[in-house]
């Protein structure tokens, strides 16, 4: 935990430092531009001063030009960093920033002009130095405004950029920056390429100005705001150009040694590009205004569509999906009301309504049915229908247009969506298409929803089964009672679906042992539950040393209150008395015992009377149950089993059956119970031809000594 905390702290502090670093750099860049501006002011004025007084200046001619370029560079990076930092700026905010910069520049420029006017046409205001000063204030302001606009336009142009566009822009931007170097060096060699270079920049600028994708994403209000901002921006630009050109005119008539922007490719290219893009944007937005509502509607459709498709993940039930479908389709096609008729069963339907009463919608449905209108409303047809013409005959109805859609889930028509408008001929083909897509999507959502429910249910069921299986296993005894007179082996294997096979042994006295085998009807958790009840009954009743038939009577009495309708338990209960060498037993509907007589070598099934526990739920059960007894001799074998064994099937569909079971026993009659059991299981698997059993196999084999 401490490490994690430290890591987070470090990451945060690193981010903080990075943030601080960018902030510091932005501040530094601003400082550099301020300093370079002052330097420009100083050097340029000193040159103009020297030359007009015909003194050779100490300041070299090229210095102001280089300083101007330094100023441009620092300002360029200042705005670049500043705007890039703000990632969440929207388009209107961006335009607002440009406008604000223009406003500041214009206000400062106007203030100086006001000063000029206030001072009047004095010697000072016409002096070359004053004019140069005014020029040197106006020019950087203009440059600042241009660079700001340039950076902003970059962001707009590169919105939804392609590879090609990005490449072109990079050429443009780096070309412009390189032109600064060209401007710094006053080489006569490259004088000739001034015009072609400028033209090239203007052409690239024109091409780039064609990228107006952002305009489409403005809504109606934003478009109006943008128009206003752009108009003012263009106005500031025009004002700035006018001021600058008039200043250079005046200044040019007095001296030729000032830093003239008209020789500056960067500034000229910027001026053209920024103005062009502003004007283009203005025009494009203006012409886009009438179609904005259409675009907005399309966007809303997309959003609505998404809502429907996502509703499956977020909504808790089908009803929410229906309501979203109603809401979205109404808002998309400007309907006044809608209803959704969903089949509950074969004959009944439920109506979900939107801005219409249940009664009103039922009335329209009834009216259309009475008119024998063949359409989706009777849910027999599967096509979208415009049923408007049939509404006219319904008196007092406020609606004049109706459009109906079938909704399908897994190819089954589960209901009808009807949209209503008060306007006659209120739906067009386009709307029909959209809403039918919605209806389809809603169908899919509902289907997904149902599938997911099913999957969840399955998962729950599987989990339950797992628990039931564990419970079942734990109910079977780990150790069986053994005696000098007999030996017992037992086996139980259940299929994936838990059954309720149960066997157990209990010593009731030195000479008596109780045995039970039982099969609970049903499967899964209920079976495991009943099995545990049976175990409880066996352990409590067997200890009381009661006769087997009495055991069954009491067990039945106890189970009547636990077993639900249709459930029963078949069981056979034995009391083995080693003193008398007799076995008392009672069969309650369980599979007949297979008995091998060692002395005669005969096998037989004890098909005695007796019905399963829980089948008769009153005292009369006594008459259906009886106690039997036999004497056992050494070598006799008793095989107890459940119906899973006799009913095991091979691939031909034949059952294992009683005869085969008896035969298998005779084959290994000399062996120990454990081995007899092993042999039986092997034969069983061999017979069914698979290791995947589809029922429970349970046997308990008792061999007398």
């Amino acid at each position, binding site marked *: 935990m401490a490490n994690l905390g430290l890591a987070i702290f470090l990451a945060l502090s690193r981010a903080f430092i990075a943030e601080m670093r960018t902030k510091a750099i932005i501040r530094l860049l601003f400082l550099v531009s301020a300093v370079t501006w002052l330097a420009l002011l100083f050097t340029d004025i000193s040159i103009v001063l020297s030359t007009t007084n015909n003194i050779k200046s100490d300041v070299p001619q090229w210095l102001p030009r280089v300083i101007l370029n330094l100023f441009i560079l620092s300002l360029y990076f200042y705005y670049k960093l500043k705007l890039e930092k703000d990632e969440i700026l929207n388009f209107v905010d961006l335009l607002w920033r440009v406008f604000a910069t223009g406003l500041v520049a214009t206000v400062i420029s106007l203030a100086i002009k006001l000063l000029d006017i206030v001072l009047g046409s004095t010697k000072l205001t016409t002096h070359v130095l004053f004019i140069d000063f005014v020029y040197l204030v106006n020019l950087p302001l203009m440059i600042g405004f241009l660079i700001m606009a340039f950076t902003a336009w970059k962001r707009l142009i590169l919105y939804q950029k392609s590879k090609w566009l990005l490449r072109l822009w990079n050429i443009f931007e780096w070309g412009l920056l390189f032109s600064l170097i060209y401007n710094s060096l006053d080489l006569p060699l490259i004088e000739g390429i001034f015009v072609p270079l400028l033209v090239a920049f203007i052409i690239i600028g024109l091409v780039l100005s064609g990228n107006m994708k952002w305009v489409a994403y403005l809504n109606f209000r934003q478009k109006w705001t943008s128009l206003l901002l752009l108009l003012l921006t263009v106005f500031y630009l025009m004002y700035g150009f006018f001021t600058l050109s008039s200043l250079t005119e005046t200044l040019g008539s007095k001296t030729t040694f000032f830093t003239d922007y008209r020789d500056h490719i960067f500034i000229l290219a910027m001026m053209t590009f920024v103005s062009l893009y502003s004007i283009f944007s203005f025009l494009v937005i203006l012409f886009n205004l009438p179609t904005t509502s259409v675009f907005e509607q399309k966007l809303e459709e997309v959003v609505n569509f998404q809502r429907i498709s996502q509703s499956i993940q977020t909504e808790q039930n089908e009803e929410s999906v229906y309501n979203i479908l109603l809401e979205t389709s109404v808002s998309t096609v400007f309907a006044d009301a809608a209803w959704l008729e969903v089949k509950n069963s074969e004959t009944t339907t439920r109506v979900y309504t939107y801005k219409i009463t249940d009664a009103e919608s039922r009335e329209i449905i009834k009216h259309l049915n009475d008119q024998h209108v063949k359409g989706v409303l009777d849910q027999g047809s599967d096509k979208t229908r415009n049923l408007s013409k049939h509404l006219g005959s319904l008196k007092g109805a406020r609606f004049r247009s109706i459009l109906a859609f079938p909704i399908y889930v897994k190819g089954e028509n589960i209901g009808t969506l009807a949209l209503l408008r008060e306007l006659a001929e209120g739906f067009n083909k386009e709307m029909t298409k959209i809403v039918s897509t919605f209806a389809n999507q809603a169908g899919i959502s509902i289907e997904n929803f149902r599938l997911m429910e099913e999957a969840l249910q399955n998962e729950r069921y599987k989990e339950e089964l797992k628990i039931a299986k564990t419970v079942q296993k734990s109910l079977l005894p780990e150790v069986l009672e053994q005696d000098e007179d007999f030996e017992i082996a037992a086996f139980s294997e259940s299929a994936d679906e838990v059954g309720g096979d149960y066997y157990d042994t209990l010593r009731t006295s030195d000479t008596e042992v109780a045995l039970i085998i039982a099969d609970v009807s*049903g499967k899964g958790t209920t079976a495991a539950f009943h099995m545990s009840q049976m175990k409880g009954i066996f352990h409590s009743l067997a200890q009381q040393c009661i006769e087997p038939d009495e055991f069954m009577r009491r067990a039945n009495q106890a189970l009547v209150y636990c077993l639900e309708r249709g459930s*029963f338990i*078949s069981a056979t209960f034995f009391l083995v008395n080693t003193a008398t060498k007799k076995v008392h037993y009672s069969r309650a*509907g369980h*599979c007949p015992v297979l008995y091998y007589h060692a002395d005669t070598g005969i096998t037989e099934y004890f098909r005695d009377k007796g019905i*399963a526990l829980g*089948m008769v739920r009153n005292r009369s059960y006594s008459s259906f149950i009886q106690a039997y007894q036999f004497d056992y001799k050494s070598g006799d074998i008793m095989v107890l089993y459940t*119906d899973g064994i006799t009913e095991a099937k091979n691939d031909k569909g034949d059952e294992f059956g009683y005869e085969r079971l008896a035969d298998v026993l005779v084959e290994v009659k000399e062996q120990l119970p454990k081995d007899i059991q092993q042999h039986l299981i092997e034969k069983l698997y061999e017979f069914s031809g698979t290791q995947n059993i589809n029922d429970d196999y349970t046997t308990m084999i008792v061999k007398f000594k």
Partner: protein
Amino acid sequence: MIHIKRLQEDGTDVLALIGEIDASSSIELDLAIAKSVGEGFTKILIDCSSLEYISSAGLGVFMSYIEEFKDKNIKMVLFGMSDKVANTFEILGLHELLQIGKDKVQAKTMINEL
């Protein structure tokens, strides 16, 4: 899989069970009997001649109606069982609680005598 055919013969509802009845298809048997009872039949014949197998769940369905039928005085007779199916009924002791006839003729006499 089970297919249950219903037809009425002079006031008696005859349900013919075709196929096998296991845990899942026993629900259909239950529904069929419930429907017959719901429609007011007091004599129900169950034709088991095409019933190939019945599991304990299927037997449970018959068992569950015994008391209800006694209360409502509804008579039900099963008939035409194969030895194998009959054996399943016998092992559980259900043959002592249900009326089981050899064939349809016997079943009809049984249901009218009851």
